């Protein structure tokens, strides 16, 4: 299996891809659609979805799922279709930049297959939970699904970005019998390749600079989430095992030191470039008992970075990444609304706690 295709060789086709995504962008839900959705019941949401962009997925999955599960599977399938199309359209450097980000779905699929095999789920269940939005082709995913053992999955993934990390983690899995190391390895492989090979000394106001800023933000916020989770858990965990290189917020050593003291960690974030964006959330973090609010603030802050990408360089990777993030946000929001309504949350609570507009 080899995920490096010839598509990332040659010239980028920005004009073509951007023209295609403009039309897709027009069909994204707007604020009014969300306002309507939060006031609907779960059956109404499913009905509403049948009259939108998600019609074909809702109809295709309607015989197997119902209610909010149907909505969630339709959202995932639609997301996969759009991102798969996007990778089909992109050539050259643009393909590489887009694929870097979308490989997180490859990591998702690898983890889903590993978890499925580990828990003894049947093939159909595993297949349903895949999100075919990454770089893996259907044939490659078929090969992975055909594996009968975890070691076989790792073997099938040789010559991919997952090879090194998963092979090292397989030993740990065989010793401990738990998936932690393999799951972390799959995610680490994604984050390690996210920034690998990208220029580091680009102007921050250039298209590549903005793209890099977003990816670094993604890495920083992942490190931040993990540092806070480790600090809160109180468990004897080596923070450096969960550190991802490439961000600007802290290096491995700093993370090791800061995890020991939540106050110092919060102070460090306040003094960083993210301090202003996260100021209110950091105040709440000191008061509240839960990290959920803070994660919500991190998601919102990351999307603010994404918004900066949208219009400044019309013929660059920025509008493409902006579209990807807008589509992900749409899927997240619809799912959050549907699940929120299913759980009986009031529209105001859903708007405040779940939806990021």
């Amino acid at each position, binding site marked *: 299996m080899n995920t490096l295709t010839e598509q990332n060789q040659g010239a980028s086709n920005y004009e073509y891809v951007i023209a295609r995504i403009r039309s897709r962008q027009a069909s994204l839900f707007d604020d009014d659609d969300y306002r309507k959705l939060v006031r609907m019941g779960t059956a109404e949401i499913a009905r509403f979805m049948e009259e939108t962009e998600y019609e074909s997925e809702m109809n295709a999955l309607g015989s197997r799922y119902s209610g909010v599960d149907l909505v969630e599977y339709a959202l995932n399938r639609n997301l996969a279709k759009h991102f798969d199309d996007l990778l089909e359209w992109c050539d050259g450097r643009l393909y590489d930049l887009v694929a870097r980000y979308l490989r997180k779905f490859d990591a998702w699929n690898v983890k889903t297959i590993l978890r499925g095999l580990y828990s003894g789920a049947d093939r159909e269940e595993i297949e349903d939970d895949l999100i075919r939005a990454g770089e893996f082709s259907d044939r490659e995913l078929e090969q992975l699904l055909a594996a009968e053992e975890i070691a076989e999955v790792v073997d099938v993934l040789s010559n991919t970005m997952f090879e090194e990390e998963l092979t090292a983690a397989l030993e740990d899995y065989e010793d401990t019998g738990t998936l932690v190391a393999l799951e972390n390895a799959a995610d680490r492989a994604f984050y390690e390749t996210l920034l690998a090979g990208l220029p580091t000394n680009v102007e921050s106001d250039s298209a590549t600079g903005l793209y890099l800023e977003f990816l670094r933000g993604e890495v920083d916020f992942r490190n931040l989430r993990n540092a806070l989770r480790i600090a809160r858990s109180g468990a004897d965990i080596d923070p450096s095992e*969960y550190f991802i290189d490439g961000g600007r917020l802290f290096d491995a050593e700093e993370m090791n030191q800061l995890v020991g003291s939540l106050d110092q960690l919060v102070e460090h974030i306040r003094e960083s470039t993210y301090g202003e964006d996260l100021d209110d959330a950091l105040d709440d973090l000191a008061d509240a008992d839960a990290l959920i609010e803070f994660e919500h603030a991190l998601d919102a802050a990351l999307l603010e970075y994404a918004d900066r990408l949208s219009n400044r360089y019309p013929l660059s990777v920025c509008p493409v990444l902006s579209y990807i993030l807008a589509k992900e946000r749409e899927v997240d929001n619809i799912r959050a609304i549907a699940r929120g309504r299913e759980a009986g949350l009031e529209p105001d609570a859903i708007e405040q706690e*779940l939806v990021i507009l």
Partner: protein
Amino acid sequence: MAKDVKPTRKNLMQIEDRIELSERGHDTLEKKRDGLIMEFMDILDQAQDVREDLDDSYDRAQRAINMARAMDGDVAVRGAAAALKEHPELTTQSKNIMGVVVPQIESSKVKKNLDERGYGVLGTSARIDEAADAYEELLEQIILAAEVETAMKKMLEEIETTKRRVNALEFKLLPDLRENQEYIEQKLEEQEREEIFRMKKIKAKKEAEERAEREEEEEEVEAVAADD
């Protein structure tokens, strides 16, 4: 009932012994019942607290999982759950409260650290951690509730049994025995009266016979004296 008993002194003594034993048993069972009720009230208070905590834990766990399913998706939450194969271990022992054997449940491996839950930390969120945390806490509360509520149920069964025994002694066995005792006593008194009456009759008859004999003798003596 009373008519089935032979009104003999032996039976009366036996019944008196049984009454004495039953009264002693009744007092002991009454004390046991009162003691059990007091223990039960303590357990009831504990069970009410545990139930309240359980309700709170359930609400918290539901909120946490709803939030995780909304923000991360049901597929992600199920996936994270599938990464854990190790189940909590439960061992049961028993303890004795006033003769009632109640279970004592010890649990291990319920609360887990972040790196023991099976799912990777790098690709998951604090929302999933909080849901896992809340469900671990809920499971601990369920185990505690199972222990306390089983003890409460067993205590209730024992109180019910003891109450039935006390009532059976108080309202059935002892009244029956007393009725029998009274019946035998009456019968024996009656027999005694009959005996006395019979004895008096015999005595009177005997006296009459003796008197008649004496008179006859006197008449004979008088007749002999007249002949002389």
